[in-house]
């Protein structure tokens, strides 16, 4: 699996595995965009950017990958959206070494918050850009 895929898999497993987050975001965790009619709020993960770390001979050792992880929902559910984002921050926001696997570090690099119009309804998004350091498999 690619290092980007490893990072995505780790994020999805970590967030889907948390019962507290499932309570705040009953719509679940989705890649890039949630299907139509998904319950709200929901979580969306997407790859943002990245760079590789190589050794002196140009062999890739690590990938520094940044992912956007956000909770989305109607502005009328702003408290639930914010609670979900706070839970995401608890789970993957602070610098930590992960206990096993190829993802050896994760931390939040910057917050994300913006609104949008969905039809005539106001929606809101809370989350952050999270940097993962992933070993080459």
């Amino acid at each position, binding site marked *: 699996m690619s290092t980007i895929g490893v990072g995505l898999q780790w994020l999805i497993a970590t967030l889907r595995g948390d019962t507290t987050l499932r309570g705040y975001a009953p719509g679940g965790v989705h890649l890039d*965009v949630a299907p139509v009619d998904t319950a709200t709020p929901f979580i969306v993960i997407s790859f*943002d950017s990245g*760079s590789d770390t190589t050794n002196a001979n140009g062999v890739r050792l690590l990938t520094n990958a940044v992912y*956007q992880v956000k909770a989305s929902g109607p502005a009328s559910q702003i408290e639930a959206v914010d609670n979900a984002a706070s839970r995401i921050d608890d789970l993957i926001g602070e610098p930590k070494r992960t206990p096993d696997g190829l993802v050896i570090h994760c931390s939040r690099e910057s917050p994300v918050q913006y609104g*949008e119009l*969905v039809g005539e309804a106001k929606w809101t998004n809370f989350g952050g850009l999270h940097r993962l350091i992933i070993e080459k498999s």
Partner: protein
Amino acid sequence: MAEGFNHWLAIAEALDKECQEIAVDTAAEAKKNIKQRITANGQVQTGFMRDGIYTVSRKGSDYTGGKDALPPIAKPTSKYAARYAAAARYSIHQNNGTRYIPPRPFFGPGTERTRPYLDARMAGIEEKLRGAK
């Protein structure tokens, strides 16, 4: 009697100047990389979002405004800092995605692509100081 025995003043002044220039030039490089990424992502219709990427330092700003533009960001307070930003109001929706549109990020990738430039400029500081007299 000797009044001076080294080039400390010239070196210090050259370092100060170079540190300011690195900040301004790095912001300009980031702007270029972000614009390239917008084009590569196929996000150009009118060109307003691409052309709305701008830089701000104490030397000035190339913000151009427009009907769909956000207000300009503040100038940095330090002379060793420079900023770059997206003026188009809808940039964040293109970059971060919406309810029905997947993200097509350009700001982060453009920034990441700028890191080697900053590293190279920092590595070149010593060489710049050698010429200071």
